[in-house]
């Protein structure tokens, strides 16, 4: 059919035949072709498939693409719903699981959903850890970090909800060739900002590479998948943990090398412990690739690439000739194979970039003109200004700051079940003393670092050992004795008294020491001086000279403030301590202060205004302490040079730290870290005279806290999807989330409106604590009330339903306010320290907690209009709680020590009290509520597991 004329003839005949009815075609062709059998054959061959033609090539191209391009191996979730998320399409898949594009129907935005494959979270502890990680990653709120919104779970599918960032990845962009230098620098600066923000929160990316960096159409850079590499990898290999290393400092314990070969730091490639400097290496690789469009380290295979990473220098000649010296130097400092010689802080990269470019800009434009005109003088001034700017920047960024935990080796000292707290280390660094409940009761134990032998020093003989708001265990300056404090319960009148004890470090008789001084805490300096404070108003601090028994008062805070955790600087020049407020047995709004032992004005060292505890000195200049962040996460370990006073978060990972202490030479640091905390809700009947047993409440969430009884339901808060939400559990077993916690975690118990229409609750976000209302049936959104109040603790609804009472910050201390619900302005109800309001059933008055002295808290009352209201004397221990029975004259009180509390009925007219429960000591109770018919108490229980880690700070 090569002859065009003949082909034309065949086609014409076909065309004509097709216009005819099928039954006439054969006759038509036969007639048209005559005896040209070849022509007839050709026409018939074409027409043979005419019956198929109608169904040929009718597939629409989108369908075709969908069929060809979509991976069809995995069951797709497209079309399903995950919470409020409607899954639209699959975006890709990776080692971590499938990624989908989804529509958040509630917030009306598109998100990315990363489905977590089952094996990652099969075990409950892995899940808890995963949720904790997600929660911390979710606090990485930064314009250049792809956000993690939270976790979503439905029908057995668990997924991370991530910010959907549209645009090209840097890897895709680089297929067009290198970025012009100014673009590369602009992108690099944004990456630096992202890394710096994450490192400040202790989060390491671990897999920074061009494919994880997105550039949106307006040029904004977003770094994606922060911390996810570790999060998922650990979940894979959680069963293979090495017992000697705590999770936060050695991700490689998983036995997996994480990351992408070409961007992996040498230490990462070798499977060694890594820290934020691994991100600095990867940043160097990315910057190099941006300006050259080729990887800094490459090879035919992964092993060739790793060999290049470990052994070869990048090809510096590939850098464009116009690359400024400052950028070349920065690249060299980032791509230094020895992490100890590498750039320490990503913030320093910004400095290098800015210096380079400000210098360039001046050289190009302003400077020459000025110099020409005004000769030396202006140039001199300019150099001075530049020099002072650089110095200022150096100081700001703490160019010379060195993280004391860099290159530290870390050992886990205990790996038993149970909780360990208040670890202290002997001045010589050879013995660690700590509180543990592994034998049932809280006891002081010691362990020898060298042998790992453990010994129980108190064996149940000391009660009330644990107090989260003080340092409870210490050593004598020679290390021969362990010092401990407890609060013995007074025989009459309630409350507790403080007692100090010493016991030989290797075991022996407990000796009551410092009797009669009412010491609640002390620190013993190497020169024999002691600083102590009794628990009276304002925690007055006393210093004794060696061999003196009674000391001289050097300072007292105003009532309501506490001075705890005193510690001497090694040179004896200062006493460092924590000053702040204590609410519900923990510090909040506290900071580290210091004062000379001779007295004078104390000096504030830190400005967190969060829960700051356990100041510890490695040497006269290096202060370490624990602090929570403004969203309430942590506490993490912070460090500062006391001369510069710039705080640096130095612990990485998500484990909260609960105590901190250092040896005298500052070369060993011991800390306790919370590895897991489990919560549950319980109910116990209280009607008869007999003491009944408590039974657990089945929850749809993993645990629950602060239950509140409604009519036919319980409202409680629970850690779910990586944050604390507010849940409503119907007695029928159905549950709904009233507040999912993504816009702020719920931090205290809720209040249910009399009549049950609304629920009031308190959330914390970025340092602010705010009061919200939501419909009790879960419909409609939550609305904020009393915007102007920075609230504290839990709200209480007035029995007439007209107002809420809640403590709020006023002139630096919590005062009770009445919040009218008709939109009126909140009015102060009590103009002194007052928290935890509870309405009397009649609505005529409220009771509340006054300022605590030591660990004692007095219960006070005020009329509904703010007038004084008489109340019999009632003193509780911090952390105790109460609720009214159905009348104004009887209370239910939860009291006891931290690890053993029970419920009592207290008659307010006679002061008579009767114990209602015997709950056992294995679980701590935090909060409770009484059913409206007063027949049942519902309460929460918290079980924490923790471990002790020892840091050897070799380079010190």
């Amino acid at each position, binding site marked *: *059919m*090569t002859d065009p004329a003949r*082909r034309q003839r065949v*086609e014409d005949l*076909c*065309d004509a035949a*097709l216009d005819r009815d099928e039954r006439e075609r054969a006759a038509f062709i036969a007639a048209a072709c005559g005896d040209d059998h070849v022509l007839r054959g050709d026409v018939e061959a*074409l*027409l*043979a*498939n005419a019956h*198929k*033609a109608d*169904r*040929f*090539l*009718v*597939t*629409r*191209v*989108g*369908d*075709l*693409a*969908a*069929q*060809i*391009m*979509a991976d*069809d191996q995995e069951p*797709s979730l*497209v*079309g399903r719903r995950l919470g409020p998320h409607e899954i*639209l*399409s*699959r*975006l890709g898949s990776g080692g971590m699981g499938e990624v989908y*594009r989804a529509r958040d129907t509630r917030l009306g935005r598109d998100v990315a959903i990363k489905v977590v494959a089952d094996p990652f979270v099969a075990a409950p502890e892995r899940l808890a850890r995963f949720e904790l990680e997600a929660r911390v990653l979710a606090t990485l709120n*930064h*314009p*250049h970090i792809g956000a993690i919104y939270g976790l979503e779970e439905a029908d057995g599918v668990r997924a991370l909800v991530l910010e959907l960032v549209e645009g*090209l990845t840097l890897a*895709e*962009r680089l*297929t*067009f060739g290198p970025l012009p230098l100014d*673009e590369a620098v*602009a*992108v690099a*600066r*944004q990456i630096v*900002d992202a890394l710096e923000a994450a490192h400040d929160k202790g989060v390491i990316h671990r897999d920074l590479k061009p494919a994880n960096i997105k*550039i949106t*159409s*307006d*040029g*904004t*850079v977003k770094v994606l998948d922060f911390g996810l590499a570790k999060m998922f990898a650990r979940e894979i290999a959680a069963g293979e943990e090495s017992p000697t290393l705590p999770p936060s400092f050695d991700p490689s314990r998983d036995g997996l090398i994480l990351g992408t070969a070409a961007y992996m730091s040498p230490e990462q490639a070798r499977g060694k412990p890594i820290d934020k400097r691994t991100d600095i290496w990867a940043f160097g690789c990315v910057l190099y690739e941006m300006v050259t469009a080729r990887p800094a380290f490459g090879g035919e295979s992964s092993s060739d690439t790793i060999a290049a990473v470990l052994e070869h220098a990048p090809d510096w000649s590939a850098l464009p000739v116009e690359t400024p010296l400052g950028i070349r130097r920065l690249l060299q400092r980032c791509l230094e194979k020895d992490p100890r010689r590498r750039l320490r802080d990503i913030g320093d990269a910004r400095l290098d970039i800015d210096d380079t470019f400000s210098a360039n800009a001046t050289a190009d434009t302003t400077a020459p003109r000025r110099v020409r005109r005004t000769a030396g003088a202006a140039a001199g001034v300019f150099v001075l200004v530049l020099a002072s700017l650089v110095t200022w*920047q150096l100081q*700001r960024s703490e160019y010379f700051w060195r993280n004391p935990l860099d290159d530290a080796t870390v050992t886990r000292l205990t790996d038993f079940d149970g909780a360990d707290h208040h670890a202290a280390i002997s001045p010589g660094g050879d013995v660690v003393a700590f509180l543990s409940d592994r034998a049932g009761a809280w006891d002081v134990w010691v362990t020898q670092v060298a042998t790992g032998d453990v010994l129980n020093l108190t064996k149940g003989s000391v009660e009330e050992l644990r107090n989260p708001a003080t340092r409870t265990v210490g050593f004598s300056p020679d290390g021969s004795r362990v010092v401990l404090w407890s609060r013995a319960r007074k025989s009459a009148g309630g409350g507790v008294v403080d007692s100090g004890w010493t016991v030989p470090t290797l075991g022996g008789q407990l000796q009551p020491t410092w009797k009669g001084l009412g010491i609640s805490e002390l620190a013993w300096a190497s020169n024999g001086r002691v600083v102590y404070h009794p628990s009276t108003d304002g925690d007055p601090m006393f210093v004794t000279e060696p061999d003196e028994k009674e000391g001289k008062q050097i300072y007292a805070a105003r009532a309501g403030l506490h001075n705890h955790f005193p510690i001497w600087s090694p040179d004896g020049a200062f006493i460092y301590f924590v000053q702040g407020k204590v609410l519900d047995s923990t510090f909040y709004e506290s900071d580290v202060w210091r004062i000379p032992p001779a007295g004078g004005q104390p000096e504030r060292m830190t400005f967190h205004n969060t829960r700051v505890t356990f100041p510890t000195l490695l040497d006269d200049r290096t202060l370490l302490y624990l602090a929570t962040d403004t969203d309430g996460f942590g506490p993490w370990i912070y460090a500062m040079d006391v001369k510069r006073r710039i705080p640096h978060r130095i612990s990485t990972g998500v484990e909260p730290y609960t105590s901190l202490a250092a040896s005298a030479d500052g070369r060993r640091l011991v800390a306790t870290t919370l590895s897991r905390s489990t919560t549950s809700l319980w109910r116990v009947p209280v009607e008869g005279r007999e003491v009944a047993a408590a039974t657990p409440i089945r929850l749809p969430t993993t645990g629950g806290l602060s239950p509140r009884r409604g009519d036919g339901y319980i409202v409680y808060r629970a850690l779910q999807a990586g944050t604390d939400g507010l849940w409503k559990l119907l007695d029928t077993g159905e549950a709904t989330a009233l507040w999912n916690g993504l816009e702020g975690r719920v931090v205290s118990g809720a209040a249910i409106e009399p009549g049950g229409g609304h629920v009031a609750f308190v959330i914390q976000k970025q340092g602010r604590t705010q009061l919200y209302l939501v419909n009790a049936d879960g419909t409609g959104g939550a609305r904020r009330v009393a915007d102007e109040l920075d609230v504290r603790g839990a709200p209480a609804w007035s029995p007439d339903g007209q107002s809420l009472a809640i403590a709020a910050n006023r002139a630096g201390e919590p005062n009770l306010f009445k919040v009218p619900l008709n939109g009126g302005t909140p009015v102060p109800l009590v103009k002194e320290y007052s928290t935890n309001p509870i309405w009397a059933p009649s609505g005529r008055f409220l009771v509340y907690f006054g300022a605590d002295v030591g660990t004692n808290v007095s219960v006070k009352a005020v009329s509904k209009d703010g007038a004084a209201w008489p109340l019999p004397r009632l003193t509780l221990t911090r952390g105790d709680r109460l609720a009214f029975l159905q009348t104004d004259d009887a209370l239910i009180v939860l009291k006891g020590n931290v690890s053993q509390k029970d419920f009592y009925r207290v008659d307010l007219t006679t002061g008579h009290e009767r114990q209602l429960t015997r709950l056992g000591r294995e679980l701590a109770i935090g909060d409770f509520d009484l059913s409206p018919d007063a027949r049942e108490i519902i309460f929460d229980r918290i079980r924490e597991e923790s471990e002790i880690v020892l840091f050897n700070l070799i380079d010190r």
Partner: protein
Amino acid sequence: MSDTRPTIVTISSPGAVTELLRAWSDGDAGALERLMPLVEAELRRLARLYMGRERHGHTLQATALVNEAFLRLTGAQHIRWHDRAHFLGISARLMRRVLVDHARARGSQKRGADAQRVTLHEGLVATPDPALDVVALDRALEALAQVDERKSRVIELRFFGGLSVDETADVLHVSPDTVKRDWRLAKLWLLRELEGEAG
């Protein structure tokens, strides 16, 4: 000093795609090599999106996929591409290249080096085209182009580009009737070719 506002950088990617398209249409074969991965990634994204919509019962516009892909990649609002027909023509060709290459790669991945035929997964989306083999279709189109370039283009534009009869007529500067006639005959020609290959 710590200004956290996003810095605006002019990333030239949309422009770059437009440039590459132009370069390719001007005969620069290298441009295609750089264009393909971008287009493929975008098409894959869109394809999945469409598959998702399909399951939701949304209807799919024939040209939507190609248009959306190119509008996104070229930054539609900025390009001054007056010759829409030219643009559509190039889009269709690129689409064909991407789909065929992808199908071919998938075929070799699944069946080893001697993979010749790719049968589409019929279970995913109901399709009237029984077992359409895109790779074989591509080969048949090549053969058709040897004897009748225009008919091959008609198939490419209408099938891979999703163009209507009138749009195709515009691109090829012929009448709609010619397009209809070419379409009908080319399909018969291809069916015969494919049957011969299969047999």
